[in-house]
Each structure stands twice: as C-alpha cells, then as structure tokens.
C-alpha cells in the first residue's frame, strides 16, 4: 500500500511530470515563470488547491455522481468544485494569514483556469484511483508543477542577459527551453518500471 502510494507520488511529480509530459498548466508555466519568488508562490498555492481538489472531486464523483447515475455531469461538477475551492481558499487565506495572502494574492484567481487541476481530476477518474491514492496523486502533481515552474524561472532569470534572436524572444525561447527540460526529464523515465 505504502509502496504504491510512493510510486504514484514519484510518477506524478517526476517521471510523468504534469507540465513536461502531459502539457497541463502550460499557461502559467509560460506566463508566470519570470521570477523565482513568484514561481514558488504560485507553485505552493497550486499544490494546495490540487490536493484539496483531488480529495473533494473524488468524494463527489464516487459518492454522488456514480450512485445517482449522473456521470454525464462530471465536467460541469468538477469545474464548479474547482472554481469554488479556489474562491474558498482565497477567502480562508485572507482571513487567517494576511501575510501569506499578500504574497499569493494575485496568483490565486489564476488557478481556476489552470488546466492542470481539471486534468488532475480527470486522470484521477480515468485511472480509478482510491481515495488515499487520489490525494497522493494530487500532492505529487502539485510538487511536479512547482518543480517545473521553479526550474523554468531559474533559467529565465539567467536568460535576461543572453543574446536571443529577435523572433524567438519571449514565447519562442521559453518553449524551446521547455523542450530541453522535457528531454532532461525523460532521463528519469527508468526510475519506475511499468509506468
């Protein structure tokens, strides 16, 4: 049991990294990865929402949608859950930890449109994870997202002084670097057999 959970955690965060293998969460990956500080902030907030979303949508899917034969409503239900979860997390952090809110504040609403979160819930249903597995999967995916975002931000900070060809500035070079990162992450592929 524990071993399986660890495999899911490593698979979700490194070998099948959400950003670099499934292309989920590319928008913030390209948009927000300018500074390491904001990358860490966004990564942490996203990890939190992902773990919560995995837990809540698991309960809704397996305890409400499946027993009442409402599976066709899953996309609508999931997106509402995620949107309200983000809203709730935002209010909660603002009330209890104003300092943290000031750091994360602007990133929080962005998380709703982060496809990594809806993607996470869909993969969770597709792979028929149990409840603890779903939570670990959410956590791993969040860690993987943070990792990719921070590495990217680090590279882009260095890149400011590089001599980049005019047409590739901005998006172009970011995508090329992401490609190289994806290549590098392929090297981890052998860690888990049968994935």
């Amino acid at each position: 049991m524990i071993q399986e959970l660890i495999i899911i955690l490593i698979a979700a965060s490194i070998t099948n990294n959400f950003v670099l293998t499934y292309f989920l969460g590319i928008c913030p990956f390209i948009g927000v990865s300018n500074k390491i500080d904001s990358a860490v902030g966004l990564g942490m907030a996203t990890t939190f929402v992902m773990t919560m979303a995995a837990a809540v949508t698991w309960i809704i899917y397996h305890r409400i949608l499946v027993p009442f034969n409402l599976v066709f409503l899953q996309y609508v239900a999931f997106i509402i859950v995620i949107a309200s979860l983000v809203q709730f997390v935002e209010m909660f952090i603002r009330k209890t930890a104003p300092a943290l809110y000031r750091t994360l504040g602007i990133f929080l609403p962005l998380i709703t449109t982060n496809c990594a979160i809806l993607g996470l819930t869909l993969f969770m249903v597709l792979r028929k994870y149990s409840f603890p597995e779903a939570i670990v999967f959410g956590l791993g995916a969040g860690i993987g997202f943070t990792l990719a975002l921070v590495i990217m931000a680090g590279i882009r900070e260095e890149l400011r002084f590089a001599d980049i060809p005019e047409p590739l500035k901005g998006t172009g070079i970011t995508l090329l670097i992401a490609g190289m990162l994806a290549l590098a992450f392929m090297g981890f592929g052998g860690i888990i057999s049968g994935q």
Partner: protein
Amino acid sequence: MTKDFIRGLWKENPVFVQVLGMCPTLAVTTKALFGLSMGLATTFVVVSSSVVISVIRKCVPEQVRIPMFTVVIATFVTVADYMLKANFFEISKALGPYIPLIVVNCVILGRAEAFASKHNVMRSFLDALGMGVGFTCALVVLGAVREILGGGTLFGYRVMWEGFTSWIIMILPAGAFITLGLLVGAFNMADKRMKEK
C-alpha cells in the same frame, strides 16, 4: 463584420500570437488528424458558447459572469465529447482527457470575456468562428510537421522517401515544445516581413 472573422486567423491568432490554449495544442498534435479533430471540437465549443453568452449577456450579473460562462462552456464540451464518442470512437479514445480539458482552454473563456460578453450575436459568432479556424490551422500545421518528421506520413499517407529515419523525438513531448517554439519564431519573422512591406 469580416474584420471580426479575419482577426483570429493571423493578427490575433490564438496559438501563435496570444499563446493561449497551449495544453491541447501541444498534447494532441502528434498527428495532423488529431490536431484537426481537436481544432474542430474547439471551434464547435467556442462558436456555440460565444453565441449563447452573447445572447444572455444582458441578464448575467457582473459578479457571477465567470462561473456562468464556465458552466455554459462545460455544457458544450460535454456535448462535443459525447458526439465524438458516438461517431468517432477511435479519435475520441486517442484524444482521451484532452477533449474534456477544452473546458479550461483559455481561448474560449478569453473570447467569452473579451468579446462575446460585450458584442451582439452576429459579431460574436464571426469572432468565435475566426478564432476557431485560426486555432485549427495552427494545430494542423503543428500536427503536420510533427507527423511528417516523426513518422514520415501525413494524415496517414506516406510522404517521405523509403528508408527515411523517423525522428522519434518529434512524437515525444520534447518535440512538441521545440516544434512550437520554432513555429512561433517563424511566425514572428513572417509577421515582421509583412509589416515592413
């Protein structure tokens, strides 16, 4: 009127200029056919949701508009998903969770928020159609490049010579990023040339 339509094709192309909707763009374009299917599904969703949002724009309160838009979009995505499953099961299986992920495609919410919620039905329809077609074109180009170099075929037909060594990297995630990065560069170059003329 035609301006609304043409804008999405080049000047505000959702993929190359606005860099929106990256996740389906990169994920499904291992083959040109998948790119085309994803493009058409997205076009369907963006056109229908823009029309509906434009119709209801006056009775939606400002504060709850984003959740409202999202629910409208999610509904049409469900329709598209079930249509694909019923008629093109193979394609639906290959695209997997990326069809439901159209819900969070920023192109669609972007059009709803930036255009359909402020303009009349006809203009919203044309604008959404232009964006959808521009998105589809970008996906087909990306898919075609990756399919030709990664497998030597285009839409399943062999186009490269015998003994052509497939570039496996093109089918892998890394190839998607690199191809799109270079395409964005090429697009910017072409755009600059055209402006100078």
